[in-house]
């Protein structure tokens, strides 16, 4: 709790509190990042699961840079928003649930990435994702929806 109080009184937190429009701007950027991150991940996951077959699997996996840009925007704005309201977010159950979902989704994404790299381009080029990769894709889709849901619920507890 001391750490949370300290965070909330750092220069950054004070700047966000006292500068008009800072908080809504970060929140809006968080939504734009969300669209890139979750929009991109959904397209990749659904393509792995067999949606939109005219679009090559390799090209769709190539959308990952958008996902990363969205992730970086949201990690940055999310951290800033957290610092601003550390004492309330830090004890918010929906917030910690969101962090847990993100950690699992991140581990799952890492497993997917390893599967893509280890395959060389075998199943990617041949457009035949093995069943375990489809499990990763399904989990990813569901987990990111859980992240969004928990995030939305932070305002209500």
């Amino acid at each position: 709790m001391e750490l949370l109080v300290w965070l909330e009184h750092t220069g950054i937190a004070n700047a966000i509190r006292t500068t008009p429009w800072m908080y809504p701007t970060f929140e809006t950027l968080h939504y734009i990042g969300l669209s890139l991150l979750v929009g991109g991940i959904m397209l990749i996951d659904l393509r792995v699961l067999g949606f939109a077959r005219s679009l090559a699997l390799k090209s769709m996996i190539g959308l990952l840079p958008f996902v990363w840009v969205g992730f970086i925007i949201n990690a940055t704005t999310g951290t800033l928003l957290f610092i601003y309201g550390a004492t309330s977010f830090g004890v918010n159950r929906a917030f910690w649930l969101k962090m847990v979902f993100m950690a699992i989704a991140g581990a799952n994404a890492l497993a997917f990435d390893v599967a893509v790299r280890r395959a060389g381009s075998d199943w990617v080029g041949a457009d035949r994702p093995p069943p375990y990769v489809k499990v990763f894709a399904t989990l990813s889709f569901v987990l990111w929806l859980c992240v969004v849901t928990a995030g939305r619920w932070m305002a209500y507890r």
Partner: protein
Amino acid sequence: MGFLEWLQNTPFGIWVGESLWAYPLFETMHTIGMAMVVGSLGLINLRVLGYKPELPILGTQQLLPLAWIGFTLNLVSGLTLFVSDAEHFWGSYTFRVKMVLIILGGINAALLGRRMFQEALPGAPPVVPTSGAKWIAATSLVFWFGAICAGRLIAYLP
């Protein structure tokens, strides 16, 4: 009593506003639908603008079902959220700006669909986007991201 006042005082409007989980549930639906619409239409628009030229333009039509699912989710959840506080939303300039941006985005999507997809004959050579189509794609991106910003700012601006 006006229509908007009646609307937000219907049992449904009161339930959405007062239930502990209804408002966040429909907000969550709205956020997920947003990611679906912007993800799918965003990729189509970027492709028209020349991104990932190896993707067949006509093939990007296969992303449209995702856009429609997202749009339907957002129409249903958006109307539901609107009903709970109809007078406030209707009176909000930011809300009106968001509605205009969505209508413009919809018109653009229909125009682009007509230019890129419907006029192409089966077996015809690959479609090359005209500068007109590229303008539509570029303005669409502005409209959809503008709608996200306006939507977020309804809570802060008059």
